[in-house]
């Protein structure tokens, strides 16, 4: 748990909505959202699974690096970080697949160039999830602590909470938190094999929902303790966070909502915020039957009949897995900067088991507390509150 004055100094993102958090937010708020579609990238071998694929003219590996660079450049620019400040920062990365994109791209090329032949033995030449952080640190001259969390869907949301904890303890001066997730055959086929995929559309909290759709994205969020900020005070503060690992189920947070409700409750306690003070909720909302049931019931347990507006971004950008924490935070902050909260895409009908509809219109973004929730494989849960202040 964290209770601290941690400023969010900058952010950047690349999603299917745009090559910056700002562009993504503008398109999101303007309703310029395309549903997931069949993928065209050369390394993806299944053309029957829909996903949220970022358009790019180069090869998939080039695109992956371009995504990371664009997100970091935007974040550094917004934060007005000097080279010295970048150097002394720590880097926390959340990713599921890391640079497996290289492996998949190279192997797909070999297979493509040898049609009809037996598949060669596939190798795995990437250096593990930590390779992304190492490459970023080298390229941008980051000399502080670097660490990678590879924890499925909560990888970068966990990284954000851990970063805030380390800032509060004064163990680091500034934290650059990166989320990165390219589209991979591994994850596309993997979630499809678990029957968690919706062939048609991602429909968070909708009665007709039947699964998730994966999206690719990258983002960077820069945080530092308020007292050490050398620039004018940020309008956004990380007020508190909570991470928790349950051990009941590898794939479900429990559909009664008790776990989700408890995690949310602990987060409110950590941030010293009451349920009534929450302006809106950026929900995990994956579109799977169980996750949305679990989370929806958890929200109801905490907020009862006074549920604030609930928004899932996954109907607009897909489930970006390990990058979700950083990406959805950056996108949300960019929307707040535009003065509006986005609607939740993909919803058409209230699920009677949930009893609420996610927000269906853009609404003005008031000052106050915004709740973020994420749930993932392995019983992992993250939740945190970001304050929008003058």
């Amino acid at each position, binding site marked *: 748990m964290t209770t601290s004055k941690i400023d969010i100094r900058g952010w950047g993102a690349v999603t299917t909505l745009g090559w910056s958090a700002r562009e993504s937010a503008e398109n999101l708020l303007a309703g310029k959202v395309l549903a997931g579609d069949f993928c065209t990238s050369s390394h993806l071998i299944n053309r029957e699974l829909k996903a949220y694929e970022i358009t790019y003219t180069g090869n998939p590996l080039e695109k992956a690096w371009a995504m990371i660079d664009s997100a970091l450049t935007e974040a550094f620019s917004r934060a007005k970080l000097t080279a010295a400040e970048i150097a002394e920062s720590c880097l926390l990365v959340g990713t599921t697949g890391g640079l497996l994109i290289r492996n998949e791209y190279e192997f797909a090329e070999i297979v493509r160039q040898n049609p009809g032949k037996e598949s060669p033995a596939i190798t795995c030449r990437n250096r*593990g*999830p930590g390779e992304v952080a*190492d490459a970023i640190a080298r390229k941008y001259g980051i000399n502080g602590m670097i660490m990678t969390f590879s924890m499925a869907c909560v990888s970068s949301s966990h990284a954000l909470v851990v970063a805030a904890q380390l800032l509060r303890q004064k163990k680091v001066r500034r934290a650059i938190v990166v989320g990165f997730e390219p589209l991979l055959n591994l994850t596309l*086929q993997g979630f499809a094999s678990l029957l968690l995929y919706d062939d048609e559309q991602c429909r968070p909290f909708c009665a007709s929902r039947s699964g998730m759709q994966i999206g690719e994205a990258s983002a960077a969020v820069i945080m530092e303790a308020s007292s050490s900020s050398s620039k004018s005070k940020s309008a956004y503060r990380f007020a508190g966070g909570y991470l928790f690992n349950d051990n009941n189920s590898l794939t479900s947070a429990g559909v009664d909502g008790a776990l989700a409700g408890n995690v949310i409750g602990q987060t409110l306690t950590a941030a010293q915020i009451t349920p009534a003070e929450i302006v809106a909720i950026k929900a995990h909302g994956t579109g799977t039957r169980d996750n949305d049931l679990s989370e929806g019931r958890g929200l109801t347990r905490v907020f009862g009949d006074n549920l604030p507006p609930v928004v899932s971004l996954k109907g607009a950008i897909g489930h970006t897995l390990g990058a979700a924490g950083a990406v959805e935070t950056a996108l949300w902050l960019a929307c707040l900067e535009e003065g509006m909260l986005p609607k939740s895409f993909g919803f058409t009908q209230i699920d009677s088991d949930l009893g609420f509809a996610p927000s269906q219109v853009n609404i003005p973004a008031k000052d106050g507390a915004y709740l973020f929730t994420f749930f993932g494989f392995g019983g*992992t849960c993250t939740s945190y509150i970001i304050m929008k202040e003058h």
Partner: protein
Amino acid sequence: MNLIMSNKNKIMSSIPVVAASYLGPSLTPNLDVAWDESKLPLSPDDLVQKIMGQPMRRAGRFIKMVCCGALTCLKSVPPEELKDKKIGIFLATGLGNVDEILPFITQVFKHEGGFPSPNQFANSVSNAAAFFLAKISEIKGVVLTVSQEELSFESALWLAQSYLERGEIELALVGGCDVFTPTVADYRERMDLKPDNSRSMRMGEGSSWLLIGNTSGKKIGNILSVTLDHNPKTELSNENILSESEKIASQFTGMQNKQKTILPGFRLTDIDQSFFKNKGWKVEDYLPHCGIHPTATAYGLARSLLSGTSAFFVHCNYHAAGRRAMVVATTE
């Protein structure tokens, strides 16, 4: 605890080590037993049966190794000392569940179109192993999987200390696990091993764990400091290692009666044993017992902490990019 924070990401706060365990390629817990690289990987199923009393049917090898190593550590502590304690799990792994990812991807890429196993995919997710361990050991709350190549274990240990200092947990089960996955050439490439940046040695594997924090019971040693120095220009020469180690040793009382020992990581190619011996330091080369793997540090430290000798240890390694890590520990 005396906390010192410097620009070298150094934490110097003595934290007790309650228990340790090390498991290498021979799959014999806490024992140095000869092994043959050409015969790896060995099946862990007998060990699983022995430690857990039943098979782990749905788990891959990486998950089994994690659980066997960690439970060996936990079970060495009287249960009453762990009762009602808030324990956090910090699993460090450089390469993760490569043993599950490879066959899964192979299925996915089959020319005739494979349908991959959902169980295999679920097990290939990096934090699946930590989940299984948490479930078996009935631990909830802080369960993290940290991955930073060959500095993964040091990073996890550093992070665990921050949680202990904050009081969010009372004990931390910190471990490093990486498994041998063929081919040796691919494994070496995965770890960016070249003749000029690593020792010439067999590839191996391990699952080695420390239980750190405060209990009312006995302790086997202390972690005195974890330093992660991210200045690539820092040299890890014999002289610098000695100088840094002597400086650290001088900050703690009672070191004069302990055997001062260097534990060299696999990137240290020029360790001069006679140089250190002349300065009163012993070099304990643990790598032949476990082989090179990203989290070999955990093996070296656990083995030293269980050595039964009264010693002051300094483990040094660095990342191929030049970042270095030093862990200092003592045994009782």
